[in-house]
């Protein structure tokens, strides 16, 4: 197959996914919504199938497709679900699927940290809010998506740009022999000074890399979070000041 044909099929399946998402989120009849969900999943899976699959033995392949499919499917269901609580739960499942993929890439700390932060803390707060707002029944604005076309076009463009970037990157930089290696562009980043040892496979190496190679980035992110935390405390209502 020629290069342009592959490109066409890739973006074609992405477009099918986008149309499916639109059908699934817009207020139509039930049959169309189901059809849209299937179309969206099929389009996304077809787009993913364009890329070379996972290496390794059968177990590895089965696990990869299991995690990838569950992450994608729960992502679609999260967007299309009409019940806010179910949407939050599908988001949790999508996070867990992604974490499974992290685990398979020998990044257990990333997986555990993502579970703690996203599935553990953030979604619980979501559920908290949802439960306070939704004790009985659903309101009208839960039934329909707001500006579905705009969001679908925006996300379609982002996904296409990401995939295009991947292709360019794959061509320019051949797959590294051992562990993830940094490309030349990443090395030119002023905030990162990659060491000779680019292999990040254990917690110790990860810590050394984070607090050695990327110290400035980590510190800037930490300061940003601290400022945000202080801001959140400052704008929170207080009984003593009569703002509650």
């Amino acid at each position, binding site marked *: 197959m020629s290069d342009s044909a592959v490109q066409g099929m890739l973006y074609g399946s992405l477009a099918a996914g986008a149309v499916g998402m639109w059908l699934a989120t817009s207020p139509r009849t039930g049959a169309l919504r189901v059809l849209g969900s299937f179309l969206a999943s099929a389009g996304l899976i077809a787009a993913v199938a364009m890329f070379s699959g996972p290496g390794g033995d059968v177990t590895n392949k089965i696990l990869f497709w299991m995690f990838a499919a569950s992450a994608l499917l729960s992502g679609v269901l999260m967007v299309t679900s009409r019940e806010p*609580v179910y949407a939050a*739960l599908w988001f*949790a499942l999508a996070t867990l699927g992604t974490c499974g993929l992290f685990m398979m890439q020998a990044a*257990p*700390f990333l*997986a*555990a*940290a993502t*579970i*703690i932060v996203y*599935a*553990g*803390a953030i979604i*619980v*707060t979501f*559920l*908290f809010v949802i*439960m*306070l707002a939704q*004790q009985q029944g659903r309101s009208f604005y839960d039934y329909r998506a707001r500006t579905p076309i705009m969001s679908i076009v925006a996300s379609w463009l982002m996904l296409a740009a990401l995939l295009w970037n991947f292709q360019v990157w794959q061509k320019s930089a051949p797959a590294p022999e051992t562990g993830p290696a940094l490309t030349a562009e990443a090395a030119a980043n002023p905030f990162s000074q990659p060491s000779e040892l680019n292999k990040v496979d*254990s*917690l110790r190496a990860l810590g050394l890399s984070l607090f050695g190679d990327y110290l400035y980035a980590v510190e800037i992110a930490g300061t940003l979070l601290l400022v945000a935390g202080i801001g959140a405390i400052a704008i929170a209502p207080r009984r003593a000041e009569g703002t509650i």
Partner: protein
Amino acid sequence: MPDGRMDKIFEYIPENLLITLVAIVAAVGAMLGVISYLILLERKLSAWMQDRRGPNRVGPMGIFQPFADGAKFLLKEDVIPANADKVLFLAAPGIGLLTTMLAFAVVPYGPVGVEGVPWFLRFIIAPGVDIGIVFIFAVTSLAVYGVILGGWASNNKYSALGSLRASAQVISYEIPLGMSVLGIALLGSTLDIEKILTQQATGGFWNWYFWTQPLACLIFFTSAMAEANRLPFDLSECEQELVGGFHTEYSAMKFALFFLGEYTHVITTSFLTVILFFGGWHFPWIATPESTYTGAWIVMLLVLLTKVFMVIVLIMLLRWTIPRFRFDQLMNLSWKALIPLSLANMLAVMTVLQFGWDRWLLGPISIGLFVIAGVISVGFKRAEIRHRPSAVELSHHLVT
């Protein structure tokens, strides 16, 4: 079956898979059996502390009570409220049990890395997990889903209030729980639970982390009790205010699943307390790395299990010793006491390690921090009481 077929099947089963299956069956089977008798023990202990007799009808001294309880759980009518969200109502107890059981996968429940253990016994389901402690925190942070969803799906105001309390409580106490262990991670420069266990066991009695990290031990134990929703922190299910909290609408086996999840959490917590702070299978003269006689591993296993049993009994005794907290007291304890204390403890460990001081300093530092915290909190309370308006002033204020 023709000859050789069985051999071929065994060829496809790697040795590791067999060992893992043995570990899982041993852990889960023992856990379920032990939990049913722990419940009996808890009822007996409660009765003893309240000067009652406790369950004594089924079998001599009531020792067959767990079987009667099990039969009751299975045979009772299974009620699902009419307006409940059925899918989530059914899923919630399962999620609760699954997550707490999953956390046990990286906890060593016997002597690991010891000579003489038969090849098919491994005493840990998932060995060599580099991020052991973080994995446990990640998985147990999902346990709150069971409580939240159970409370929400029941469509009952008491259940909803209970689950709201539970989510606030669990999120608050996760922070001191994680930070109290960071000191040990720094001292042992690893997060792998097996390695922490081996470090203490081979280091001798005075290398138990309890001696260098007593404050962290207290914070860890307190936060873990709060995470497991045990008294004095069981505000999500307190009977006087919320009927049964998040499990008000649950009956029969689904209630039993919630209960199993809670007890599994207690057992995991007890194992972690022993492994992180009290030397694991090590005990002076009885079980040391030098004891290499045949069957030494059985003694080590028994030492570990005895320690764990003592922690569980302590948790049960605390239940009838300390009264339940009020909810704002619970939040204050976490945010104003435990989190600053665990931060200070971590800072002390970092300072000692950075400047290469003697790590025995950490014991006195911990005690000093605890005393300072006590002085501050008592001083604040005194000042508040001194400035509290008297009833006469208040009534005057109300009249004018």
